[in-house]
């Protein structure tokens, strides 16, 4: 708790009023504050020269160029602090939970969509893609991957539920109908396209 003191006390402390003009009680307060200031000022000095050595050590070093400073900044670890107001933190947490909750089951799927999994074995192939009406038969649109190099290529594609014709394109030039497909249709040019039935993930 603080008290409002007579302005004369402040004036005396500020050197604007002679202290002899104060009452004994006022003078006591002024002297107590003088003593408090002395007590707060009075603490042992740091070991002589410590600060001088530290500062002189820094300023004697040549300044680094901005490029060098940027390189050091990039290559040395430094803490990064992101602060959010509590309300924003709660919103971010709720959004993250909502996203993670949905992710394993239905990753951004609409009601009548499903996941088509294309798998094919081409041990000698350097690249495999799947083409069909869903990607305008463009070989560059949907590549399959073989991360463990065992010759089995696969890709997962979200497609509308229903039947989809498709072909594999091996090494960018060889068009192959999926030998494992359960159904085929004539492509009108004397060959057959494989057909995959995509089921909706969320059935009503």
């Amino acid at each position, binding site marked *: 708790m603080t008290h409002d003191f007579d302005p004369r006390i402040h004036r005396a402390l500020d050197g604007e009023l002679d202290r002899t003009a104060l009452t004994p009680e006022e003078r006591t307060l002024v002297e107590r504050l003088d003593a408090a200031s002395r007590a707060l000022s009075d603490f042992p000095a740091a070991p002589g020269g410590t600060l001088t050595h530290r*500062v*002189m050590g*820094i300023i004697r070093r040549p300044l680094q160029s901005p490029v060098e400073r940027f390189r050091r900044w990039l290559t040395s670890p430094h803490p990064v602090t992101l602060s959010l107001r509590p309300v924003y933190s709660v919103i971010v947490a709720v959004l993250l939970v909502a996203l993670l909750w949905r992710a394993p089951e239905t990753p951004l799927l609409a009601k009548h969509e499903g996941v088509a999994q294309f798998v094919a074995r081409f041990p000698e192939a350097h690249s495999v893609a799947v083409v069909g009406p869903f990607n305008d038969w463009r070989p560059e649109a949907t590549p399959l991957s073989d991360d463990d190099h065992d010759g089995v290529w696969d890709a997962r594609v979200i497609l509308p539920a229903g039947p989809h014709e498709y072909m594999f394109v091996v090494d960018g030039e060889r068009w192959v109908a999926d030998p494992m497909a359960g159904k085929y249709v004539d492509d009108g040019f004397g060959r057959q396209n494989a057909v995959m039935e995509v089921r909706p993930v969320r059935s009503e």
Partner: protein
Amino acid sequence: MTVGEGPSGSSDAEVIAQVLSGDVEAFGVLITRYEGGLLRFATRMLGSRDAAADAVAEGLVRAYRHLASCRDPARFRTWVFRIVANRCKSHLARRPVGDVSLDDAPPLAAPDNTDEGVERTDQLERLERALAQLAPEKREAFVLKHLDGMSYEEMSAVTGERIPTLKMRVHRAREALLAALREPS
């Protein structure tokens, strides 16, 4: 010895001219001249001797690097105090609001076990706590006025605040500290 003139006998302006002409070592004269006051100010502002040493060292390095922009070398003292005061504000801004730790407060001078000594120690602890609880701008004004003995004009040069504002801050700080001394222990 007058302000701005140390044991070396040269004025601040003369030492600064020496530094700017290429004599890096001459800056040590200015450090020796002002480190005591700067450390006292920063320690009371930050409540920690280590943090104060960091703030003063950063401030002095910055002062050296920008020495050419010290427009009035005769007023080097208020200029360097202003730089260190800003470093202290940066340190305080990185801490949680109101957190001025006394864990690393300067050791109490000459502790003794007499009743009078114990009483003095208790009063000093109360003063330190009251000072730490003041708003930083009031603490700054009080320390500059009463611990570093600056005039309001010098304080205005350090803080960039108007004199009536500084007077009001000093008055409120005095009242808070005297109230702390009056509280029963």
